[in-house]
């Protein structure tokens, strides 16, 4: 589907490059560079899936839950109890809806990386992780100012330490709290999805490259494709973990802003 991977017998471009992430337009009008790519389509499907799933699952809640209701409730219950309340405390219930949305959205967006025929995650374009990270960033700063007033600046930047060490500590705290946090949130999600897609490409295309170079290398090509299957399972673990980690870190930043003391 990526345009290059379906070219079987002819020359397979190897190694894969960043260019493989810039997919062509998939609509018949508007030419090759039109904005509606597979990435756009997957994003829309993700949003529609989540909205419809939760609307349907929660439309007529029953005392004895149906399968769908059970699934929706256990996802929400997991984020609420194991992330929101565990990380933030009692106040965390307030943030559970946002964190659940975030978790589901990232999880489904990442999952496209291993779904056959889709096989690229929209999150492997850094634009999506950046927006998600910016939301978390604005959110914890806003909450900090709301809780501590203007004193949040002192709260966030001045740790309890002897005065002579403060000239070093304050810039470090500023750098780590307000610059590195959103940056690392975005990069982590992006780079994981990027590297996951790249790994699958290397082993798939590498198999074709070897089989084209020399027929004697066929067993190694097959080994390479078996590795692709194994790596797909590894990728699933990474996908679930990254959705969890992004949500947990957002919760922990919120907790840091709401805390009464260091």
């Amino acid at each position: 589907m990526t345009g290059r991977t379906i070219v079987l017998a002819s020359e397979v471009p190897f190694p894969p490059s960043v260019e493989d992430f810039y997919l062509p337009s998939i609509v018949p009008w508007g030419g090759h560079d039109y904005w509606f790519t597979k990435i756009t389509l997957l994003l829309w499907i993700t949003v529609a899936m989540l909205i419809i799933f939760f609307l349907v699952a929660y439309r007529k809640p029953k005392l004895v839950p149906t399968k769908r209701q059970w699934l929706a409730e256990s996802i929400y219950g997991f984020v609420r109890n194991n992330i929101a309340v565990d990380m933030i405390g009692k106040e965390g219930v307030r943030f559970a809806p946002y964190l659940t949305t975030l978790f589901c959205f990232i999880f489904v967006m990442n999952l496209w990386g291993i779904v056959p025929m889709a096989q690229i995650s929209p999150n492997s374009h850094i634009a999506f992780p950046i927006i998600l990270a910016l939301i978390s960033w604005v959110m914890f700063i806003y909450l900090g100012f709301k809780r501590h007033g203007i004193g949040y600046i002192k709260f966030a930047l001045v740790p309890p330490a002897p005065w002579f060490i403060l000239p070093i500590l304050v810039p470090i705290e500023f750098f780590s709290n307000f610059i590195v946090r959103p940056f690392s949130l975005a990069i982590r999600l992006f780079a994981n999805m990027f590297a996951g897609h790249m790994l699958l490409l290397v082993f798939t295309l590498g198999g074709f490259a070897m089989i084209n170079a020399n027929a004697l290398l066929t067993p190694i090509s097959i080994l390479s494709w078996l590795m692709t299957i194994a790596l797909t399972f590894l990728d699933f673990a990474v996908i679930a973990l990254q959705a969890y980690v992004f949500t947990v870190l957002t919760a922990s930043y919120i907790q840091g802003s709401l805390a009464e003391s260091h």
Partner: protein
Amino acid sequence: MAPLAEVVGSTAAIGYGLAAIGPGIGVGLVFAAYIQSTARQPESARITQPFLWIGFAVVEVLALLGIAFGFIWAGEL
């Protein structure tokens, strides 16, 4: 005089290999500490688990920065 030996292609692969050493050790330490604490006090496993993943994520990002910057700075120098 023709060079006796040369390296062609990108040295970014070597650089990334070097850059991955630190995070590799770091992730190992994180999980080692978690396994040790859980072995000593199994009932604390659930309490420390979020911190395990936070620690893992914070260390892991260093290796991932290596991937990202490898592409950002590719072709320069």
